[in-house]
C-alpha cells in the first residue's frame, strides 16, 4: 500500500479533533499561564494586567536555582533507578509463561490505582520508628532498636521510584515482548552468555525505547509534589512544592506562573537535548 500525501482540505479532517483538543486543553491554559507570568503582583490584592519581568527576575537567584537543580536531579535519578530496575525485570517477565505474565501485569496495574497520597502515607508508616520495617529487623535480632528512616532523601527516592515503576514496566513491556527472539538465539549460538547477550544485544536493540522511557519517567517525576513533602525534609522539596505555596498560600499567581513556565521550558530543553544527542549517535 502506497501512502499519498494529503492534497485536499478534507484529507486533513481526521486531524481536526486532536487539534481542537490540544488547543482547548493545552494551548489555551498554557498561554494563559504565560500571560499571567508577566502580570504585576499586587501584594494587597491579587494581580493586575501588565507586562513586567519582575516575576522572572525574582526567580533568577541562587536559592531558586538550587531548588530547580535539585528537582531536575531528583527526576533524573528517579528515571534512571526506574529504568535500571524495570528493564531487567520486564525482560525476565517476558520470558515467563503467559499465566505468570498476566498475574504480574494485573498486580502492577492494581498498584497504579493507588493515589500519591496513599503511597506517601504508606511509606511514611513503613519508614517510621514506631511502626516501621526496622521493628522487624529488631525482632529478628539484626538491629538493637528501631530507627526512623524518614524524613530523608532515601525515603523520597524510594517513594517516587515505587510510584513510577509500574508505568515504566508497562511502557517497556510491549517493546520487549515484540523483540525478535532470533537476535538472542543468534547471540547464544555464537557463544555469548545470557547476561552478555542481554547487555550487548537486547539493550542496544531497544535503545530508542529506553531513551523514550527515561524521558517519560523524568517528566512524570518532575511534577512530584506530595511525596517530597511527606517523606523529605524541606531541602528535599521540589520546585512544584514552592509553586504551590505561591499559588495557593500566597495568592501570588504571577510568580507561580513564572516558575511553572520556567520549569516547563527547562524540561522541554532537556528532553530536546536528549533526543538530539540520541539522533546524532544513531547517525554516527
Amino acid at each position, binding site marked *: 500500500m502506497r501512502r499519498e500525501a494529503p492534497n485536499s482540505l478534507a484529507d486533513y479532517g481526521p486531524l481536526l479533533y486532536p487539534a481542537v483538543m490540544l488547543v482547548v486543553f493545552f494551548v489555551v491554559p498554557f498561554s494563559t499561564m504565560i500571560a499571567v507570568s508577566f502580570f504585576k*503582583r499586587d*501584594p*494587597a*490584592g*491579587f494581580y493586575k494586567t501588565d507586562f513586567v519581568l519582575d516575576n522572572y527576575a525574582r526567580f533568577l537567584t541562587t*536559592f531558586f536555582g538550587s*531548588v530547580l537543580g535539585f528537582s531536575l536531579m531528583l527526576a533524573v535519578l528517579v528515571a534512571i533507578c526506574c529504568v535500571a530496575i524495570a528493564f531487567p525485570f520486564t525482560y525476565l517477565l517476558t520470558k515467563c509463561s503467559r499465566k505468570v505474565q498476566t498475574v504480574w501485569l494485573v498486580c502492577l496495574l492494581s498498584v497504579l490505582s493507588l*493515589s*500519591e*497520597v496513599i503511597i506517601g*502515607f504508606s511509606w*511514611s508508616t513503613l519508614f*517510621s*520508628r*514506631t*511502626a516501621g520495617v526496622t521493628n522487624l529487623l529488631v525482632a529478628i535480632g539484626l538491629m538493637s532498636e528501631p530507627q*526512623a528512616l524518614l*524524613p530523608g532523601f532515601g525515603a523520597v527516592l524510594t517513594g517516587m521510584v515505587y510510584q513510577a515503576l509500574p508505568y515504566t514496566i508497562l511502557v517497556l513491556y510491549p517493546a520487549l515482548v515484540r523483540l525478535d527472539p532470533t537476535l538472542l538465539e543468534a547471540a547464544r549460538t555464537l557463544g555469548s552468555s545470557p547476561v552478555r547477550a542481554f547487555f550487548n544485544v537486547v539493550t542496544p536493540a531497544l535503545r530508542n525505547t529506553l531513551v523514550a522511557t527515561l524521558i517519560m519517567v523524568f517528566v512524570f517525576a518532575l*511534577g512530584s*509534589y*506530595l511525596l517530597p*513533602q*511527606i517523606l523529605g525534609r*524541606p*531541602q528535599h*522539596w521540589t520546585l512544584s512544592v*514552592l509553586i*504551590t*505555596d505561591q499559588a*495557593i*498560600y*500566597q*495568592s*501570588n499567581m504571577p*510568580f507561580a506562573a513564572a516558575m511553572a513556565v520556567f520549569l516547563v521550558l527547562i524540561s522541554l530543553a532537556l528532553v530536546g537535548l536528549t533526543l538530539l544527542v540520541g539522533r546524532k549517535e544513531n547517525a554516527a
Partner: protein
Amino acid sequence: MSEILKGGISRRTMLKAGVAAAGVLAMPAVLRAQEKSLKVGVYGGYFKKSFDNHIFPEFTKATGIAVESIAEPTGEAWLVQLEQAARAGQAPADVSMMSQVATLKGQATELWTPIDISKIKHGGDLLDRFINKYPDGRIAGIGAVAWFITLVTNTNVYKEAPTSWDALWDPANKDKLGLLALASNSFLLEVTAKTFMGGTNALDTEEGLLKAFDKLAEVKPNVRLWYRDEAQFEQALKSGEIPMGQYYHDVTGLAAADGQPVRSTFPKEGGIQDSGNWVISRASKKAEEAHVFIDYMSQPSIQGLMSRKVGTAPTLKKDVLDLKPEEFAAVSSDIEPIIPRYDLYTTKADWINEKWTELIVG
C-alpha cells in the same frame, strides 16, 4: 494527576473544600418558601456542616430570616470572587466568613460595608481583637469564629507538660518537633517575638523581623516535620513518632478525650489565636438582615452554643458567657493570647515569605 486534591491542605482550608457541593445543592429548595433570606458564606466542610446543623436553624427560628449557606472555596479565592462580583454589582453571599488577611485585603478596595456597631446589642462585650476596623475607624468586620494553635505534646514521651514556647528551642528536643510549614499559618515569627523579644511589636521594623528570623533559625535542627497537611502531623503526634509541636487546641482536646496520649498546653506566653470575621459585601442589598445576623451570632448564648457544638473560642468577654469552666478550657484560656500580626502578611508578604522559605529550605 490529583494535584488539585492535594492543593490547599491546611486544616481550615482543606475542610472547606470537602462537603461543598452537597450542602449548596440541598439547602435552597427548603428555604425558598420563606420571605426574608440571607446568603451566608462559611468555610466549607466541617464549619459549614456544624453551622447548618446547630446554628442556622436556630437563627431562622428566632428571626424568620432564612439562611442559604454557601461553602466558600479555599485560600483567598473567595475574596477574589466577591471582589469581581461586587464590581458587577453582584453579591454571591451577603455575609461571609473571612480570614483576617483577606479582610485587610478587602479593605483596600472598600469591599466591606461598614458595620453599625449600635445595631449589635452585645457589641460592647466583644473582645477588642474581634472588631476589625478600617484605618479611619469604621468597622469592617466582626469576629465570627476563633481558634487556638497551642504547644502540643505526646504524654508518653513527655511526662511533664512544657510551660513555655521556649521548649521548641531546647536542644534536648532535637529532631522531635512538628511545625506548620508557612510563615502565614504557623505564626512562629510572632511566637518568637513574644517569647524572646518582649512582644509582637518587635516585628514592626525590618531589623526586628530579621532578628526574629535569626532566632527562629535556631529551631531548625529540632524540627523533624514542617507540615502543610494536618493529618500527617496528628498521626505522628499520637504515635509518638513526632512527640512535640504546634497544633490546634480543639482537635488535640478531642483526640485526648478519645484516649489518645496527647495534650495541648497553653504556654505562659499564650496560645496563638487565629480567627475569621463576618463581613458584608458592599454589593449586598441585605445589609439590614446581615446586621440582624451578626447581632444574633454575637450573643453570649450563641457564642456558648458554638463553643460547645463547633469547638470555636468565644469572641465575647468571658464574664458574659454561660460556659462552665471546663467548657471554656476546652476552647480557650485566660492567658493573654498571641495575636498574629496580620498586617505583616499584607504589607510585607512577599519579603517575609521569601525569607521564610530560605530559612527552612536553605
